[in-house]
């Protein structure tokens, strides 16, 4: 038993170190946001909330923040609207090559690196004048976010119990009624998880946003990046901390809904 417990202790130690490695960068940012000096010092000095105040008042952040939230909301709604019929269609299809191909296609934005999507859209959008427009940005975000919603909705749809739907039809209900009354309620948890996923992925999305926008349509991550290279004071740390807290809060919600495991197969 002794040899086993030595290994167990070693493993616990190694795992703790790795966990530290994962969390520490965010911790440092959070600490920095409360510093009372405008440049980074270690060990941290003082405590102040003035940077949060500054961030809230700063037009460099407030505008992009609002835009990011609106964008995330609209992108989520749009993809939910497209995902539901798509998932329902897949459910009706017979298993086989065609169905696998369609599924693969819909999950495409996950496999193709964000960089590739960025540059492909850069060219296509510039042809039709969608660069640096809200519409273009919305379309790009909807594309990125789509696989997350689709996957969640598909899982829920596949788990729908056919005999409930059959019962509804036998009782005389038409397809829309059955959908609204019988199917939709079962889909809500998966939909909610997918929507929340989509929201945060859109909010976090940097690469594609950088490619399809210039100066007009700044989103929050891009604003943070630009700020980092102009100034480097705790204001950006404050904004970042808000995003960290928000990210963890969303993770808690998704965890409660039981969907946290599904994060494993996502692209950054």
């Amino acid at each position, binding site marked *: 038993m002794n040899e*086993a417990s030595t*290994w167990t202790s070693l*493993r*616990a130690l*190694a*795992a703790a170190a*790795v966990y530290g490695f*994962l969390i*520490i*960068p*965010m*911790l*440092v940012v959070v600490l*920095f946001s409360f510093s009372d000096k405008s440049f*980074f010092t*270690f*060990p941290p000095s003082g405590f102040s909330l003035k940077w949060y105040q500054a961030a809230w008042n700063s037009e460099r952040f407030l505008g992009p923040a609002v835009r990011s939230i609106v964008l995330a909301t609209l992108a989520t709604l749009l993809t939910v609207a*497209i995902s539901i*019929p*798509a998932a*329902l*269609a897949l459910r*009706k*299809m017979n298993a086989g090559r065609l169905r696998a191909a369609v599924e693969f*296609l819909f999950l495409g934005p996950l*496999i*193709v*690196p*964000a*960089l*590739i999507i960025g*540059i492909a*859209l*850069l*060219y296509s959008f510039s*042809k039709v004048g969608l660069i640096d427009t809200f519409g273009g940005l919305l379309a790009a975000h909807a*594309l990125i976010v*789509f696989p997350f919603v689709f996957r969640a909705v598909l899982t829920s749809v596949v788990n729908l119990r056919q005999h409930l739907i059959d019962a509804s039809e036998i009782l005389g209900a038409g397809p829309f009624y059955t959908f609204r009354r019988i199917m939709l309620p079962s889909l809500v948890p998966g939909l909610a998880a997918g929507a929340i996923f989509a929201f*945060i992925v859109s*909010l*976090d999305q*940097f690469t594609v946003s950088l*490619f399809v926008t210039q100066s007009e349509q700044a989103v929050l991550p891009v604003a*943070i990046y630009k700020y*980092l290279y102009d100034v480097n004071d705790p204001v950006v*740390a404050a904004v*970042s901390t808000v*995003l*960290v807290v928000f*990210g*963890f809060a*969303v*993770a808690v919600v*998704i*965890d409660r809904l039981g969907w946290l*495991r599904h*994060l*494993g197969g*996502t692209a*950054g």
Partner: protein
Amino acid sequence: MSTATERNRNWAIWALLGPGLVFIAGLLLVPIIDMTVISFRGESFGQILPGFTLANYASLVRDSTYAQIFLQTFAAAALVTVLCILLGFPVASLIADAPARWRGLLYFLVAAPLLVNTVVRTYGWLLILGRKGVINETLTWAGAIDQPLALSGNYIGLIIGGTQVFLPFMILSIATSLIAIDRCLIESSTILGAGPVRTFLEVTLPLAMPGVIAGSVLVFSLMLGAFVTPLILGGTAVKYVSVAVFTDALVLFNLPRATALAMVLLLAVLLLYALQKRALRRFEYYA
């Protein structure tokens, strides 16, 4: 089922698929096809010329800077993947063996960082690795160094940052495989006389391979296509494919060459996924 119902069903399927297909086709397929076409076009002062040319691809092969870029990118991706396996395995093993009460929390701490913006996660490393960052300040204060170490704006910072960003994917992938291993197999090995090391090497590790492979492919391809981390932590010292694409496209306005680079990257990623399918087939024990 009569043909009428069959036809109705088919019509319904295509009607439902319609919006999704148009959406994906219009925003993903068409742009990628366009991009492929562009990569074969010439360029002059920011304008794309009509006609077909292989010049862009040729320059990728001839120009030694591109060879360096590819080398450094692939090397970085490989290094990060290996580090993720080494660092990720203990955590995945811990999660797999943890009692149900703790597993949720352990999972959470790994998965939650994925929901935080990559820019923010990488920014933290700037603060830690910078010239006046946490590490340098601590080492100077302890008297271990005279000059601050260059840990950021170079390869080292890139590898550290990249590992941290993609580590959760590896952990989750390996953990899934480990959890699927039947406890009785481990107990059988122990009763047959094997110690912890032997049991790990002969039973646990082979059965965890699907997770290691899937995780490796995921991390490798994510790191290949990584943009934020090389941009922020790489600095000018590091040559990375994604940054070169960005520079070519939005700084030098040489879209054709940028897309040629991007095509190479896309092909590499697709090749990886194809290889993964083949590699995983070897490990289908439970079939």
